[in-house]
């Protein structure tokens, strides 16, 4: 049995505010690209499950041909193999096209029983790709998982975070699981891991190899920066803390927000 981890390469979060509308339009974002931070939790969980259940692991990422840094990060953490799905023939792939390609790539790996994904990508922000992968594969979907309790006999049991609490759910394998941040603490790649990852050969699958075409149902239009509201802060002054607090309370009351 094998575990597939879906990894997206995304801009470093600290550089997101600098990303311009033009860069997003052209798809050529000029930022340091890293592994999507949420996907580190998925990679870590694959490693922990490998220890617990002796499952092999493979990282899959769809992106442009040079988008291998995120996969190398996963390899450096200890993931067994990595495969890049080259998106260049798939246009402005939306989540369903991406899901179709990744689902096909999962099948290509053979004996995969579990697909692990992050909770959402810091650029696309959909938190939906995994639903598409589960739907296209016809597998169980468990989202926001905080703990994998058990796996075996054709079933997986997990604890998941839901609004207002937590629940323990069992579903048949194979399954697609998106992980929550509560699930683990991702390890840092070791020096040896980084060396190994840098030497690794990362095979590339094309849309043609996978037999998928662009099935996008949505398009991004009118890409723009949110309006920047220029605020000039009013610092409340006063002779005592009580006076400042009273003035601030008055100012807030006058805004009619409470």
């Amino acid at each position, binding site marked *: 049995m094998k575990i597939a981890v879906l990894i997206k390469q995304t801009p470093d979060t600290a550089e*997101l505010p600098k990303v311009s509308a033009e860069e997003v339009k052209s798809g050529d974002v000029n930022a340091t690209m890293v592994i999507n931070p949420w996907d580190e939790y998925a990679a870590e969980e694959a490693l922990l499950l490998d220890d617990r259940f002796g499952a092999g692991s493979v990282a899959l990422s769809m992106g442009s041909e040079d988008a291998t840094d995120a996969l190398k990060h996963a390899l450096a953490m200890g993931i067994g193999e990595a495969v890049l799905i080259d998106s260049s023939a798939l246009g402005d792939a*939306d989540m369903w096209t991406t899901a179709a390609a990744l689902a096909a790539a999962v099948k290509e790996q053979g004996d995969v029983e579990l697909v692990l994904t992050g909770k959402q990508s810091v650029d*696309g*922000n959909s938190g939906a790709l995994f639903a598409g992968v589960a739907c296209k594969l016809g597998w169980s979907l468990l989202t926001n998982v905080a703990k994998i309790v058990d796996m075996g006999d054709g079933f997986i049991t997990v604890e998941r975070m839901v609004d207002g609490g937590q629940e323990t759910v069992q*579903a048949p394998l194979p399954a697609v699981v998106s992980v929550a941040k509560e699930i683990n603490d991702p390890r840092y790649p070791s020096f040896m891991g980084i060396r190994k990852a840098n030497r690794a050969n990362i095979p590339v699958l094309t849309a043609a190899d996978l037999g998928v075409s662009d099935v996008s149902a949505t398009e991004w239009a009118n890409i723009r920066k949110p309006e920047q509201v220029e605020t000039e*802060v009013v*610092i409340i002054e006063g002779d005592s803390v009580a006076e400042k607090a009273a003035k601030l*309370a008055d100012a807030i009351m006058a805004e009619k927000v409470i």
Partner: protein
Amino acid sequence: MSVLVWIEQTPDGPVSSSWELAGKGRELADALDGKLVALVMGAETSAAAAAAQAHGFDTVYTITDPALANYRLSAYAAGLKQAVTAGGATVVLAAATNFGRELTAYGACQLGAGLAADAVDLRVEGGKLVAVRSVYSNNILVDIVFETPVQVASVRPRSFPLLEASASGGEITALDLGLAEDDIPEKVLESKVTAGSEVSLTDASVVVSGGRGVASDPEKGFALVTELADVLDAAVGASRAAVDAGYIPYKHQVGQTGKVVRPDLYIAVGISGAIQHLAGMGGSKVIVAINKDSEAPIFEKANYGIVGDLYEVLPALTVAFQERLG
């Protein structure tokens, strides 16, 4: 042609932002010359269905089945599909809660429909839905245009005004789930979903958040934050630094890797205003910062500020509001 809204039930009743979609949904249905339809699913549906009626839906579909007692994706997705077919829905909406996001995503894929996840605005153009999404962690806005006959969106709470109940309801129509318990592969073994006395962060119109500034006495610091929040009927938020230090659980975290909130009033206490924190609260209407460092970046985003020690300012502010709010 109709606009279908899933009304999610919780132990506290229907998710309140469903009533935002009642108002916005009416506008969309009018623009599409179609009906506004609600879907209520559960082991019990009568109270939520009556509430939906009172919020002006033309038709309220109910699917009442013991198998729907707990939310389970495959069962709820089957129910959603029934209602979409029964109502001839071309636009499907739900509040972007955890379940709402999951159900709309999976449901859209099953229906061969396009999805706009966590949309912040909706309109109709050329007979189709256009949804505005905030991407790149709130640094870019895009219009999602659909190429599919059915268009699905989950909608971020507090995107639209809440529609008041007016008791001018349409008919209630019961549908069958069409599934037996054995057809539903997932089993909920245990559910610790509690009816909340806490105000939910994403629905709150006022949020008071604490940060690492409480480090010298975190217990007292968050007690003071909570006291102010109680007076203002506000939810309590936190920075990641406060969460990572263990002062308060992760579910309170506001920011890029926490919750995105858009309250009318956001009070940041002992929070410096890092980019990743701003990503979660920058859309608030009025921002107030309390920080002892007048150079803290949060003051560049704030409308009002007090430069001072939170342990002194918070009690005074709580008293000031008590006097004004009674």
